[in-house]
């Protein structure tokens, strides 16, 4: 793995959103790759829900998640108890560093030198690969998309489809350069080549690391959704399996999983079901032929319990990581996932990342939305993403004395000039006489209106003031 340069997300300055967005906008390849991919995903989702009462199903999904969150502390205790009964070792991690250390300690105890990984966004959040490499432990991604991204020394640009920013040609060149495969646009060939490269690693890995889609408290079951079989290999072939998950992924019963699964796969990739659905309930038993000797679950907090304290921000934790908000976001479609510079990009990233990194780092994230509402409209568990964006905008400028901010780094975006402009704006619009005088004067002297208005006239002509305001027209009419 020494030839693969891992790039830690920490090397990306989140604050540099603007220049990255500009670069992405002017990169026709990025624009084309994302437009094509997102158009496809949107239409697949639409047809996957045909014949379903989607609103009722979304209500059900939202309620399942809300009910789970309402009882989160109890459910987590129940989960720990059941998992322990089943022979799974449970670890609690307050932050990414602690979670990484737990994984390392398990590896060290087994004298493990190589880790094979299934797809896991929490491990991206933890920068686990980077950390393990630093500890002399090889960590190889086995999800095809993640594998490609790892070969390229990049981070995922989408939470479901990590390599969606690359087209077949780019992937072919990358694999040729890094692994010596032939240059080919034949997807079958490329997939087979990657499979061959990975197969050996599966057989020899000391530890398998995976994520978790749902953790069922009642039965102590870890559910894992995937399409390639690499998740099943990761969790069964190596002698030790470590699952990592955020603390919010717990649901009370197996029944809850049914509805959430129906929503998850359709929302994410437009599939009715995935190829594999793994339910892990313990290590290999004495009379069983295969499966790992030991199974661990690392429950990662990493800022989640602080969101949990707030009635409004809590809704962020409903997320089941389907990525539909990204697929439908007109901003994400234009700039792609890497522009955000965050583990989770797109709309969910904009409301989740400020909790993980603070608003001083992520101050631009909540503004990078036209508040069009497409994300909230498609969210299978009805997270009110636009409302949460407004809430975080308020926190980023400390703009509400009545409802003080809760997220770290609040007020980081407040500028003296901007604050003064809004104060003046507010005074004028709260005083109708001043407003009418101001707007009448503006209409009268509209010839003096500036022809250039910052970013607006970069792409459009300046709006033209009417010769008479509606107020004036109606006054003339005697109203």
């Amino acid at each position: 793995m020494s030839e693969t340069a891992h790039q830690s997300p920490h090397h990306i300055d989140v604050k540099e959103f603007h220049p990255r967005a500009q670069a992405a906008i002017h990169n026709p390849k990025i624009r084309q790759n994302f437009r094509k991919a997102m158009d496809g995903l949107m239409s697949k989702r639409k047809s996957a829900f045909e014949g379903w009462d989607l609103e009722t199903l979304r209500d059900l999904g939202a309620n399942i998640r809300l009910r789970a969150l309402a009882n989160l502390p109890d459910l987590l205790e129940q989960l720990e108890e059941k998992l322990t009964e089943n022979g799974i070792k449970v670890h609690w991690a307050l932050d990414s560093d602690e979670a990484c250390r737990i994984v390392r300690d398990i590896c060290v105890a087994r004298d493990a030198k190589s880790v094979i990984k299934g797809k896991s966004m929490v491990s991206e959040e933890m920068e686990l690969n980077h950390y393990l490499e630093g500890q002399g432990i090889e960590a190889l991604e086995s999800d095809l998309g993640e594998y490609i991204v790892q070969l390229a020394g990049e981070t995922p640009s989408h939470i479901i489809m990590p390599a969606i920013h690359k087209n077949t040609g780019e992937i072919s060149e990358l694999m040729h350069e890094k692994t010596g495969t032939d240059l080919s646009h034949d997807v079958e060939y490329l997939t087979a080549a990657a499979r061959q490269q990975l197969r050996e690693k599966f057989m020899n890995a000391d530890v398998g690391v995976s994520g978790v889609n749902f953790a069922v408290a009642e039965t102590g079951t870890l559910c894992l959704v995937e399409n390639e079989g690499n998740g099943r290999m990761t969790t069964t072939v190596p002698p030790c399996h470590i699952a990592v998950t955020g603390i919010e992924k717990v649901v009370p019963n197996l029944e809850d999983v049914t509805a959430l699964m129906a929503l998850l796969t359709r929302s994410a990739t437009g599939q009715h079901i995935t190829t594999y659905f793994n339910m892990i309930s313990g290590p290999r038993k004495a009379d069983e032929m295969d499966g790992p000797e030991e199974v661990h679950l690392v429950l990662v907090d990493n800022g989640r319990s602080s969101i949990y304290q707030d009635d409004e921000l809590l809704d962020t934790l409903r997320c089941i990581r389907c990525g539909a908000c990204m697929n439908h976001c007109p901003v994400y479609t234009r700039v792609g996932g890497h522009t955000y510079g965050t583990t989770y990009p797109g709309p969910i990233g904009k409301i989740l990342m400020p909790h993980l990194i603070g608003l001083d780092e992520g101050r631009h994230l909540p503004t990078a939305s036209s508040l069009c509402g497409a994300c909230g409209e498609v969210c299978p568990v009805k997270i009110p993403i636009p409302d949460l964006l407004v809430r975080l905008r308020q926190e980023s400028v400390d703009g509400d004395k009545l409802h003080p901010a809760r997220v770290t780094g609040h007020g980081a975006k407040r500028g003296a000039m901007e604050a003064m402009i809004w104060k003046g704006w507010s005074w004028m619009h709260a005083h109708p006489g001043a407003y009418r005088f101001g707007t009448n004067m503006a209409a009268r002297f509209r010839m003096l209106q500036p022809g250039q208005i910052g970013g607006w006239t970069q792409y459009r002509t300046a709006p033209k003031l009417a010769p008479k305001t509606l107020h004036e027209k109606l006054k003339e009419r005697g109203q």
Partner: protein
Amino acid sequence: MVDPIKVYPPKPSKVYFYGTCLVDMFYPDAGMAGIQLLEREGIEVIFPENQTCCGQPAYTSGYHDEARAVAKAQLGLFPEDWPIVVPSGSCGGMMRKHYPALFKDTGDDVKAAEIAGRVWELTDFLLNVCHIKLEDLGEPTTVAMHTSCSARREMGVAEVGPKLLGQLSNVNLVEQVRTEECCGFGGTFAIRHPEISGAMVSEKVDAIVDTGAKDFVTTDCGCLMNIAGYAEKNRKPLEGQHILSFLWERTSAKKGERS
């Protein structure tokens, strides 16, 4: 985000007209058209003179104290129990959906909720409360329509515009690709993220131009300013109008004024 079931009131004899600041300063004809359409339906229109702005620009920018001060100045303008009609999905959405949140934990929360419950987007009101019947007096024409995201998703009136235009016998309504996608306006978003907003509006304009329509109508002045402004600057053969101006022109005797 969308009301699951909308309970429309019976047709009233009077309504409050809330003009919005963009209509007031930039598109007063759209406001006049809305008022005339209501009057033609036999409704008396009351325009509270002290209205200014709903407060949305500051609200979505995070300046909630400032937004609240402006919104509070509007709360006293509608003392009677008449519907409040707004020629904008965006300002309508602010008043209907966000006033209750904005005034949470203040002494004005009950009043804000009461007013929010009386706010209607004007085209929705014309179609579903007034049950308006439009007679087309215009020449045959082809138009495209862009429904604002707030009209579509906050106010749930995406079907209304096409239905109203469908009543006009000489109007051929064409649909652009990705009709549901945002035009990139988003208030201060267009200023804060000009490149992204510019990319969005350029694709929206291309999509509309590709329909072959030379004219488009919208429910919101923000989208109108954005789409028409881009078309003008980039010399695209496209002109825009607020849907209310269009409906009034097509159905009043004063034909051909615009062309």
